[in-house]
């Protein structure tokens, strides 16, 4: 069952990145321009995708990050996948983002969205999003939900539990 869950996640591959940055612990796809990443937020995957927009410099984002990590580490055979979309500055990907991922031992998928023309893509993630981070998109077969908020552990886990129960 674990093996099966793993293959389901792999089947929902991330879109082809523009380039890749890496350290000895992490390999991170970088999308230059929203268009390259668009399929990630526009499709309706079978697996519940929890897509969190964040940055290392954003204190409330860093505060809630452990709860997203718990979802990944403790998912067992639950059909969910966490994708952390970093909006870190282009000049700080190697100097700040990669060391952060290593220090915190982040195991969820991390990608970088490098597109400063945010007005052109924020509404495509969700029209209710003002652009403040953190923001999280919950995407599944019958689910499309955006939350512009910092989650507590209970809020995040309760919401994910209820979304998974609703899934047929």
């Amino acid at each position, binding site marked *: 069952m674990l093996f099966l869950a793993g293959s389901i996640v792999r089947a929902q591959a991330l879109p082809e990145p523009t380039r890749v940055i890496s350290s000895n612990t992490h390999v991170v796809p970088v999308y230059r321009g929203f268009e390259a990443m668009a399929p990630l937020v526009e499709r309706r995957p079978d697996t519940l995708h929890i897509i969190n927009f964040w940055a290392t410099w954003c204190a*409330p984002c860093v505060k809630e990050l452990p709860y997203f990590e718990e979802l990944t580490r403790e998912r067992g055979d639950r059909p969910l996948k966490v994708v952390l979309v970093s909006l870190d500055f282009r*000049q700080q990907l190697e100097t700040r983002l990669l060391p952060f991922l290593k220090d915190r031992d982040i195991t969820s998928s991390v990608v970088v969205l490098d597109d*400063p*023309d*945010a007005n052109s893509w924020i509404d495509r993630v969700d029209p209710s999003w003002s652009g403040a*981070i953190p923001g999280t998109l919950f995407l599944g077969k019958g689910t499309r939900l955006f939350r512009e908020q*910092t989650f507590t552990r209970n809020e995040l886990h*309760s*919401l994910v539990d209820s979304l998974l129960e609703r899934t047929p």
Partner: protein
Amino acid sequence: MKTYTLPLFALLFTLGSLTAIADGYEVGDRATDFRLKNVDGAMVSLSDYSDAKGFIVIFTCNHCPYSVAYEDRIIALDRKYRDKGFPVIAINPNDPAVQPEDSFEKMQERAEEKAFPFPYLFDEGQKIYPQYGATRTPHVYLLEKSDGDHIVRYIGAIDNNHSDPENADQHYVADAVDALLAGDNPDPDMTKAIGCTIKTKK
């Protein structure tokens, strides 16, 4: 478990919809005046500016990297438009108990370091930003005076490239002020940008 989580989910959903309805100004609305403390200790209100045609009100702060990235461009906006009747009024909406870098003392330090030519006001008690509906820093509200009222004419970002001013090819705020000066309506009159959340005690 099932009976518990489903009502909770419904509650979360309802709360989300309610806050969306109650959210601040839209273009065309009348904006409130205020009386807030400037970094020089003086109290500042929009009504102090009898000669102004309007205001570039910018909710911004010290700590947010996006705000810092725009500091020089905010200074340039004030230099360009103050004498044309649209001065910049910067307001820090954050609660320093949550973000100590945005304390009044730190605001004074930053204003001096950067020689801000515009007032940099402290939204003490966080009474003003919720009325405007600001959600992030930086967040611009362009106001135009009209029969004693301050009408919101543009809401949003300063330009379309936070990381590299040279590569911004849409200068939303400058274009919006130019439009008002020419007697036109700004187009676009609403844009979005990534920014830092406004810091409040939960």
